[in-house]
Every structure is written in C-alpha cells, then in structure tokens.
C-alpha cells in the first residue's frame, strides 16, 4: 500500500440536512392531517458530520428524553417539533446500530408489548405468592 494517508473530510455541508428537514415537514403535515406515521432511516443517507450537526441543531430539543437499556443503550428524544422524534439505538461498545427520525405521537418502542405485560402480570403474582409463603413460614417458625 502506498505511504501517506488521506484525512477524513466530513466537515463539509452537502445540503442533505435541508432535504431531510423538508421531508420531516411533509411527514408532520400528514401526521396532523390524518394520523399517518412515517420514519426516515438516517444511517442509509450519505451525511457528513457537518450535515448531521446541522440537522440536529435545526430540529432542536423537545420536552421528552427517554433512555432505554436493551442490549445496549437507546435514546428516544422528542425534537422541538412535537411529533418528530430522534431515535438512536446503540449496540456493542456503544456504537450506533440504527438511527431514525420517527414522525408519530409516541414511538412504538416506548410502549410495553402485550406479551411482556402478560408475563409481568404472571411474574408479579408468583412473587406475591412466594413472599406470602415466606412470611407465613417466618411467623410460624
């Protein structure tokens, strides 16, 4: 391999963030009009670091920030535009595994899944029975 190396030139604006903002605006209009939800996959877009910073700054921060610990950290952050959410999932070594802007009232990943609720109900019932038995044994002993 030839000597020397090229620096990573990712500090230039390409106009991508403006295009994404226009798309988010259209999606918000649709959500307000008839409840249509939509998402933009940010990882699939050839954005430079500068584009990304511009996009984040333009969307700003809203009232809600949620952190999830699911096989790595995930953050769900409302932007300054209600209904537009910035969702970032991280995997091994805190690296970003997927990142999207979701346009919806509440991102699906925040809601508890019916299967998990069913399991939780069963678990709590079992824990209560177990505690009750332990207490009964302690008071008898």
């Amino acid at each position, binding site marked *: 391999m030839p000597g020397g190396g090229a*620096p990573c030139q*990712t500090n230039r604006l390409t106009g991508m963030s403006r295009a994404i903002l226009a798309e988010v605006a259209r999606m918000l209009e649709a959500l307000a009009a008839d409840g249509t939800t939509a998402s933009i996959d940010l990882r699939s877009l050839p954005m430079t670091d500068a584009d990304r910073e511009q996009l984040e700054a333009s969307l700003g921060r809203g009232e809600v920030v949620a952190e999830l610990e699911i096989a790595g950290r995930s953050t769900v952050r409302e932007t300054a535009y209600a209904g537009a959410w910035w969702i970032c999932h991280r995997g091994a*070594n805190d690296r970003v595994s997927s990142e999207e802007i979701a346009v919806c009232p509440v991102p699906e990943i925040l809601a508890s899944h019916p299967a998990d609720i069913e399991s939780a109900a069963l678990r709590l019932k079992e824990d209560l029975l177990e505690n009750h038995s332990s207490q009964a044994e302690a008071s008898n002993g």
Partner: protein
Amino acid sequence: MADKNRKHRPQALKTQQTLGDMLAERGVSRRSFLKFAAYTASILALPPTAATAIANGLAAARRQSVIWLSFQECTGCTESITRASSPSIEDLIFDFISLDYHHTLQNASGHLAEAAREQAMEENRGDYLVVVDGSIPLKNDGYSTIAGISNRQMLEETVAHAKAVIAVGSCATFGGIPGANPNPTGAVAISELTDKPVINLSGCPPIPEAMTGTIAYLLSFAGIPELDHLGRPKAFYGEAIHDRCYRRPFYEKGQFAKSFDDEGARQGWCLYEVGCKGPVTYNACATLKWNGGVSFPIQSGHGCLGCSEPGFWDLGGFYKPLSAAKDDALKYAAGAAVVGAAAGAAASMAVRAKRNKLLKAAQAAVSDSGKEEN
C-alpha cells in the same frame, strides 16, 4: 439486556418453541425484538416502518438450524460475522439460529464433528440452511478435503435436503482468490454445483450486516430477498459504492487526488485516479461501513478494491485507475471522469456487462481445461 425474567430460564433451548417464547424465558423483552428489527430494517434498506413486521415475524419464527461449510477459504468471512467483542443487539442473530456445524467454531472434532452435521441434516431435513464460505476445487478432489471427504462431495450431500444455500465471500460466490489466474485448483463458485436457490453475499469478506441481515430476512419473511443479476440481495448490492460515496461531489467537480500524499488527497478529493473501483463495485460499504460503522476504505483514504465483484483480483491492478485498466471494457469508465455522472453510470453498466461476459468466457475456458486434465 433485560434480566428480570432470568429465573425462568430453561435448562436447554427448545427448538420447537417460537423465538419470542424462547427469548422471553431468558428475560429478553419484546422491545429487544423491536430494537433488533429497527437495526435489521435499516441494514436491509427497508423503511423503518417495516420494523414491526420484522419483529412480529421473528417472534413467531422457530430457531433456524444452520450448517456452515468452509472449503477453499481463509476464515476471514467467519471472522467478519463473529467480529463483535461484547454481547449486543447485533448478536441477537446468534440466538435466532442453531449453528449445528462449523468446523472452526465448534468444540467437536473429527468423526464427532461430522456426526453433528449428519444429525442436523437428518433432524431438519428440508428445513436447514447451508452457509458456505470458500470455493470448490474441480481439478482434483484431493486438493481440499475435510475428514477425508472432498469439498465437492460434502457440498453435494449437505445441500441435497437444504431449504436454501447462502454463499458468503467472494470465494464461494465467484471463485475468489483461489480462482485467480491461473486458477491452479480449478476453483468454482458454489452456484455452479447446485440447483438449490443460492443467495450470494460477495466481498472479501462480506460486510457482517449483509450476512446477519440476510438470515434475519429469511427468518422474518420466510422467503428470499430480492436478488440482483449475480444472485446478491439488492438491499446490500443494489447500488455502486460510488453512488453513495461522500467523496462523490469531488468527482462531479473533477477534483481528484493524483497520489496518496498530494494536496488533493489531503483535501479528501475523489480517489478515482489512484485506482478506486467504486464506480464499478456494488456493495454497501459507503453506508453500512465497517467495524460497527466506524469507517470504510475510501473514508480511510484508500480506493475501493472492488472485492465484491467477480474476478476482482485479476482486473488490472489496485492502484491503476479504471481508465488505465488492461481491459478495453474498463476504459469506458475513464469517460465517467470527464463527462460526468450520467455518462458514468452508463459506463459502469457497460463495464459490468462486458466484464461479466469476459469472466464467464474465462471461467468456461478454465472449466474446459480442467476437464481435459481430468
């Protein structure tokens, strides 16, 4: 990962359980499925809204038996898929499959290893996946054997009752480096030796997400993803590196590095003139990148080698621009640098079409010479 249900963990994994039930018993919540599905939808270039369908499909699927065969290869493809250093969302794929045979990773060796392969074939007849890395030598069966079984024989008997075959790496998909001129072993691609559906995941090695994403797709949608004319999933091989390269604007402006240490290289200009094969290489390196999304060769200052294209090893030199390649067809790409993107795309298509024709002719010639020697 959620750990609240750990006390319900079963002693052994039950293959008849759905993945949803199996992982719930291990304390893995449905949110984990949704997170994995969001990751999978992203790497498969599906709309993020497809994540729910993927999560539901995975939760309802059964654990998939996989037999991994390694022939004339360097184990780089296995290194690629097992690259993660700590448990993470990307590794959930290893909970979704039962890797019943992989002679590099499994504990068993010798006859016991082969018995594991035979048992998996018997117990999952018609329903197991075969993953193959490495090419098959046709000039002499003795060039590459495992437990005394030739590569060709092992492939034929293992794929006979498989649901589908995934060829990973440029050796299994196109003959790769073992098949490079003068191809001393008569190496051929897997697809030339079976009538089963073969999904080609080319690259040296393939991007790990191409492997895990394809398996996740097979499990979620119980079908084969849309493939290109070389049998590769369009989600990963549908666009040229060049089309998604962040240096593309410099190409459009005619700003090229002339060497690896000139001002153009320092400015991060297009690497076309120092041999980048991005315009004729179809892969997802520019978007998925490598090492968990850290970088890819062009971002690190080196041109694309074209490793996911047929015969990349024999295409005229890694540091020669496409315009100086020995093959006349490749010279079409030179025009791309001069006349711009539209002409560039047309030139790339012309290059690919002609190159594939030439490679097929070359492979036929090798095949004929192999038959004569045998």
